[in-house]
């Protein structure tokens, strides 16, 4: 540094101009890698998806990329029963997996928040599923949910007449897929809640217990309201994740024709998008599904935001 200063002392104006340039330009240089790559691989495909969605493009029909169909793809979606089915499946699995998952996470976080021996080991144990890939989770649970010789049916044996064919019905396949999602994400959400819980001042609990509040009342009237921003955060993140559900239903379907079961019992929106785009080569229609999914995501995230804001704040 000092050597540089000495060398350039005789041409100070140049140096100070350089310094000014450094101050004004370098911030943009530093953020440019992100914005350049994001423009090419994020923003541009987004706009291009919108354009493709107004065409009849299929790689199997030469020249179809240039055939404009206006909003026809979107109109078709409105009456496409398979899309409606995929939407219902996605929302159903989303509810069955997200609601119990976040409640459970809240409970686990509450337990982890006690002063415990070996808390690092306990936290790591809870987080192990998060480190496991979705594909591995799906395949391991596939085996556990097998109709014949599956571990789960063996455990259920005393309670049911005949083995449950988990893939065969909507309700059972939704439960199976939701169990995979829950196993994967509950610990992660528990840690997020735990982090927020540790910022709650202990005095709040102390004065509440002097006032005669039970542990349960303290949990509902102090812990939950204090976690409001975190709860909003996790609800929105899990909702977006649930709407994008793909690998679990994709791998749960052993036939691999991407129908999501014989009667499309667990075909989700992204699995349907994948089927239209990949299996059937319908680029235009797939693009319309993608944009519709985005709109649905924004709407549901907004609804969630408004609803979860109604949890009473502690202050």
């Amino acid at each position, binding site marked *: 540094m000092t050597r540089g200063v000495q060398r350039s002392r005789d041409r100070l104006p140049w140096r100070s101009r350089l310094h000014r340039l450094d101050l004004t330009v370098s911030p943009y240089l530093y953020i440019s890698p992100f914005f350049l790559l994001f423009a090419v691989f994020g923003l541009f495909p987004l706009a291009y998806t919108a354009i493709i969605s107004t065409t009849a493009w299929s790689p199997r029909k030469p020249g179809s990329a240039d055939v404009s169909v206006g909003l026809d793809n979107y109109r078709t979606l409105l009456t496409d029963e398979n899309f409606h089915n995929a939407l219902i499946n996605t929302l159903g699995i989303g509810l069955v997996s997200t609601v119990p998952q976040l409640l459970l996470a809240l409970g686990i976080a509450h337990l982890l928040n006690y002063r415990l021996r070996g808390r690092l080991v306990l936290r790591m144990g809870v987080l192990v599923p998060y480190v496991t890939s979705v594909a591995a989770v799906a395949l391991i649970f596939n*085996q556990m949910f097998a109709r014949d010789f599956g571990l789960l049916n063996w455990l259920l044996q005393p309670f049911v007449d005949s083995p449950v064919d988990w893939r065969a019905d909507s309700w059972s396949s939704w439960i199976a897929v939701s169990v995979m999602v829950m196993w994967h994400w509950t610990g992660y959400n528990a840690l997020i809640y735990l982090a927020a819980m540790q910022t709650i001042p202990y005095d709040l609990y102390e004065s509440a217990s002097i006032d005669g509040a039970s542990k349960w009342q303290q949990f509902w009237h102090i812990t939950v309201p204090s976690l409001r921003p975190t709860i909003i955060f996790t609800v929105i993140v899990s909702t977006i994740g649930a709407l994008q559900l793909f690998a679990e239903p994709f791998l749960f379907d052993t036939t691999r024709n991407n129908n999501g079961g014989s009667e499309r019992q667990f075909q989700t929106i992204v699995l349907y998008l994948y089927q239209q785009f990949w299996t059937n080569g319908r680029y235009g229609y797939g693009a319309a599904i993608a944009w519709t999914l985005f709109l649905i995501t924004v709407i549901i995230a907004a609804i969630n935001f408004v609803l979860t804001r109604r949890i009473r704040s502690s202050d």
Partner: protein
Amino acid sequence: MGRGRRKRAKDGGLWITYGLLITIVLVSAFPLYWSVVVSSRDKSSVGRYPPPLVPGGNLWDNLSTAFVQGKFGLALLNSTLVAGSITLSVVLTSTLAGFAFAKLRFRGRNALFTMVVATMLVPTQLAIIPLYIMVTQWFGWSNDLRGVIVPALVSAFGVFFMRQYLTSAMPDELIEAGRVDGASTLRIYWSLVLPIARPGAAVLGLLIFITYWNDLFWPLILLNTQNPTVQVAIANTASGIEVDYSLVLAGTVIATFPILIVFLILGRQIIGGIMQGAVKG
């Protein structure tokens, strides 16, 4: 941590707490244990009632068959390359941009940062069709690791994470002092910011590495069975009419245990990172 602020469970309550937590940890670990059990058995014992609950003697056989049939050797190398290069790039670009957003003044800073946060909400699947066309037809990268790596080289989450980290970890006075000494911004970044950013960058790197090691959707579209990542390889072993589950679960063992070992070594940092990101997010 804690410093006496956290509540202490009393007597009986404590044992219930331990009991519940240990049960939860066992439930969390059991499916992985069970994947080892199944992958250490032969095909016939998978179709037996009651299902086996302790490991058998076929683990090495199944693992080596998976390596040969499922191309797991190549897959491990590919996954390491993919996750490794993405991690390096994301950490570098995120630290740079995070530093600019946290500590430098420039026109449009808030608007641009709001954009970064907003882009975190855009699902990858939305861009999948054009991305596929671009990567395979325009760049000619079908079945090419570059097609998996390049679109993921930057991360909005990474920029967000490093900005939050540097805002609190990097004192403004230090930058002022550097300026007084006549250091250029690049010099300040290199000698002052990077050393301070290291713990945050390490956590970000771990989270990004885990994410891309485990990614399935995009590699599945781009790579064929001859050149898979580990996740694509295990998905491949599970396709077909006759699925040999002891082989499939041997694949999950191969795909999961390297990352699990990383987690066991660096678990404290990973947990710290998730919890830190949560409080600030």
